């Protein structure tokens, strides 16, 4: 399936294929090995409710072109927000400076655009003006649903953000690819209060969709009640325990474990430079045999999915760990060339003003043989964590954390008291060796993940079946 018509950059901004070829020639005029141009137009709208008022509506337009020149391991980068010929040429010559030979680049010829291997998010985008009334109505309904869930709900904030991102990638090796990437996200947070005790609950959902998803599969009122339930539940939560213990992670969003513990450490740039705790471990056992972990950018409509990455490569399903054995890394163009392996379609960037890096798409563990009940029943004393806030990893030492926002004690095989959020800390290359049970209930998250690396934020997804880790350190306060 291909995208119809011409890219917006040729249609609305007056460029021609010939212009693009001349920019690439300019970028290589000092003899770089490779150059690419990344045109981007990102338009987003957001609307937010708090204190039962629609407090603000926002539109943001980000337009620019990033020009990259590679010379060996070196990257030269420049960008322009003005798409005039003169400004783009100036940026191309700035990026060209990374290469130092006087050899001219010669003539560049772009291939005819090829059809995408997959069209993962065919959507009809309705004009924002038509949608804004409907969004306001959905926000008001969500607010009402959260407040009526429990009188202890004192504060509700909710928002819709949608984005349409047009990209066009042209490279000196003839690649010429464009894409139109939709995104929508609804989030809601609630504060519950009782006798001076204040707790907070957060839920959200979205994907590469438009508002229509909230008329059908996802009900903002249900998400609102879920956020309210979480905040109210925490009012009665006890302090989390401190020390190593058995931990069961619920399905879905707790897949953030994989993102932090292994995902970042398997990004090719760190491994090419041998700065990752996973450097040189391909072919070795890094997880129990129950663990198969994949990064899949090709799941339709998912937040982390892309038809092509931001270097114009088709996205893939990449097996990172198969039955416990490390299979490979997440590659962008630069690292794949330097390591002599194929690109995996993981070269991503926040925008035209950023250099592409190897990044995750949707990262999850395949389902296993157990049931969730069996997993929980097998625990004598432990923690059952079903929802998480953020996480972070130190790539070089491999130590990672992720913070539970909804968790319970397990005592004698039964879920008992709710406990307050606690940070879990572990070691990436060894934590999955301690996975002793994997259930058959794989879920992907609801589509709200944001990943940050080198100051670049991009949308990602995670997923997990219920799993048991036989020991991980829980960072509470109660001994």
């Amino acid at each position, binding site marked *: 399936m291909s995208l119809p018509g011409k890219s917006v950059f040729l249609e609305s901004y007056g460029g021609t294929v010939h212009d693009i070829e001349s920019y690439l020639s300019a970028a290589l005029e000092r003899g770089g090995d490779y150059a690419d141009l990344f045109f981007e137009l990102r338009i987003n709208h957001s609307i937010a409710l708090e204190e039962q008022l629609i407090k*603000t509506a926002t*539109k943001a337009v980000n*337009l620019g072109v990033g020009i990259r020149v590679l010379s060996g391991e070196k990257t030269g980068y*420049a960008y322009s927000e003005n798409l005039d010929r003169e400004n783009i040429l100036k940026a191309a010559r700035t990026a060209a400076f990374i290469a130092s030979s006087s050899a001219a680049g010669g003539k560049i010829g772009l291939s005819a655009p090829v059809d995408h291997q997959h069209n993962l998010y065919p959507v009809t985008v309705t004009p924002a003006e038509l949608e804004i009334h409907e969004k306001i109505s959905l926000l008001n309904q969500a607010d009402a649903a959260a407040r009526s869930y429990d009188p202890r709900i004192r504060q509700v904030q909710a928002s819709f953000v949608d984005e349409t991102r047009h990209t066009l990638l042209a490279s000196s090796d003839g690649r010429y690819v464009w894409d139109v990437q939709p995104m929508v996200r609804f989030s809601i947070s609630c504060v519950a209060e009782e006798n001076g005790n204040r*707790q907070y609950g957060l839920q959200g959902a979205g994907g590469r969709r438009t508002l229509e998803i909230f008329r059908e599969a996802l009900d903002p009122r249900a998400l609102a009640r879920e956020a309210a339930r979480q905040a109210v539940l925490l009012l009665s939560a006890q302090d989390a325990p401190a020390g190593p213990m058995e931990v069961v992670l619920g399905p879905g969003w707790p897949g953030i474990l994989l993102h932090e513990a292994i995902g970042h450490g398997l990004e090719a740039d760190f491994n090419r430079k041998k700065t990752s705790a996973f450097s040189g471990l391909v072919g070795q056992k890094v997880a129990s045999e129950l663990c198969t972990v994949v990064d899949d950018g090709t799941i339709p409509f998912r937040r982390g999915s892309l038809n092509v990455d931001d270097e114009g490569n088709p996205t893939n399903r990449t097996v990172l760990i198969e039955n416990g054995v490390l299979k490979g890394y997440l590659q962008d163009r630069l690292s794949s060339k330097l390591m002599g392996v194929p690109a995996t379609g993981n070269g991503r960037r926040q925008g035209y003003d950023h250099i592409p890096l190897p990044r995750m798409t949707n990262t999850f563990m395949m389902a296993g043989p157990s049931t969730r009940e069996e997993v929980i029943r097998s625990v004598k004393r432990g923690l059952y964590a079903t929802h998480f806030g*953020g996480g972070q990893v130190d790539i070089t030492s491999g130590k990672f954390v992720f913070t539970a926002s909804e968790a319970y004690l397990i005592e004698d095989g039964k879920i008992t008291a709710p406990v307050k959020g606690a940070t879990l800390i572990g070691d990436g290359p060894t934590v999955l060796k301690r996975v002793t049970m994997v259930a058959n209930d794989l879920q992907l998250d609801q589509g709200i993940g944001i990943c940050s690396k080198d100051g670049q934020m991009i949308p990602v997804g995670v997923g997990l079946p219920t799993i048991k880790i036989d020991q991980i350190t829980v960072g509470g306060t109660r001994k």
Partner: protein
Amino acid sequence: MIEALKDVARHVVARAKRKGATAADAFLREDETFGVTVRRSEVEKLKEAVSKNLRLRVFLGNRTATSQTSDLSPDRIDQLVDETVEMARLTSEDESGGLPDEDAYPTEVPDLRLADPSWDNLSPEQRIDLARRAEAAAFQTDSSITNSEGSSFEYERSKTVLANTIGFVGGYETTAGYLVSVPIAESSGSMQQDHWLSITRYRDKLDSPEDIGRHAAQRALRRLGARKVKTCEVPIVFDPLVARTLVKHVFDAVSGDAIYRKRSFLEGQSGELVASENVTIIDDARLIGGLGSSPFDDEGISTRLTPVVENGCLRGYLHSAYTGRKLGARPTGNGTRTGAGNISVGPTNFYMMPGDQSPDAIIGSVKSGFYVVDLIGFGVNTVNGDYSRGATGLWIEDGKLAYPVQEVTIAGNLREMLRNIEMIGNDIAFMGSVAAPTLKIRKMTLSGE
């Protein structure tokens, strides 16, 4: 050049008014940026650009909408202004909305010496050389420094302009240079990374690349051989780089936004003792050359020094025009323009006043405890103060740094942590707009083995 930006800003607010806005302000920034990373003695990345951005806020009576664009072609700007006015018709009446009151703007713009033209004399080759020297110094420190995530020099020169329909038009320029080194130390198959940096508005205040590289290397080296320790309750000492994260949590809890939303563990405690009596925290936008300084805030309000905590007592909160109106307080000049053009409350130079103890004396006062040099994760809840983060550091035994520790968490509650600050160092280091000296907290739970 700054006049050209002011012209755009004036045009934008005039057009908004013509299209039916009762008030509007336009905020423009132009950033000229240069960045280089040198890794293993070779230039790895070189990036250069000039970037412009317009952020607009319009009011229709008490309704508001905002917008942002990097596309500054005149037609597109006009189209966006018109769309923003239309969006504002759809939002709710909010009686606290509107531009700052007329008496809030500065009558004259003070020169806080935020820009240093002498950065211009530094050629691209010299800039690259700063990064190269920092990395080389790290490698030369010890043969256990075997690898590197590189050393980077970054430079930014910015022009900021604001105009509104009340007639305020102002602008100022800033410069900042930043040099960081990120070496990796290795022994018996395990690696540790750390960093050190210098950031300053003035070229002659940038620390020497050799000092930065050496210091970064020493920080990475002292982490080698780190182990876990048993779960315990002990005194915790934060080095200034991590102490500033604690002070940032205090900022998050005194921001007017968090207060009116009841999302702060310090809400309703103005005038009360919230920290140990040796703690004084201020927000000072008028610090000469400060990284968080500005003559007026992002909605034009004259900036100032605001005491936040004085000898442990919470003096008040920080406000934008909106949160001030909402909570019946004067705005403090802390309005910060978000990416989308809204105003939220942000820190200027927000810091804890240094004490009189040397870091050595603070460490020396601990019989058995934990000196934290790095924190990871987001386990901080400013709604109720719950705190649990991953930590790396050094074990203190009999007043001396004994061995490195990793894969542990420290946990507690910010309310108690602030009341339990026992000692404050004399070593404040400004590495951003939020800063702190070495701090000692009487005890927290450390979770490990």
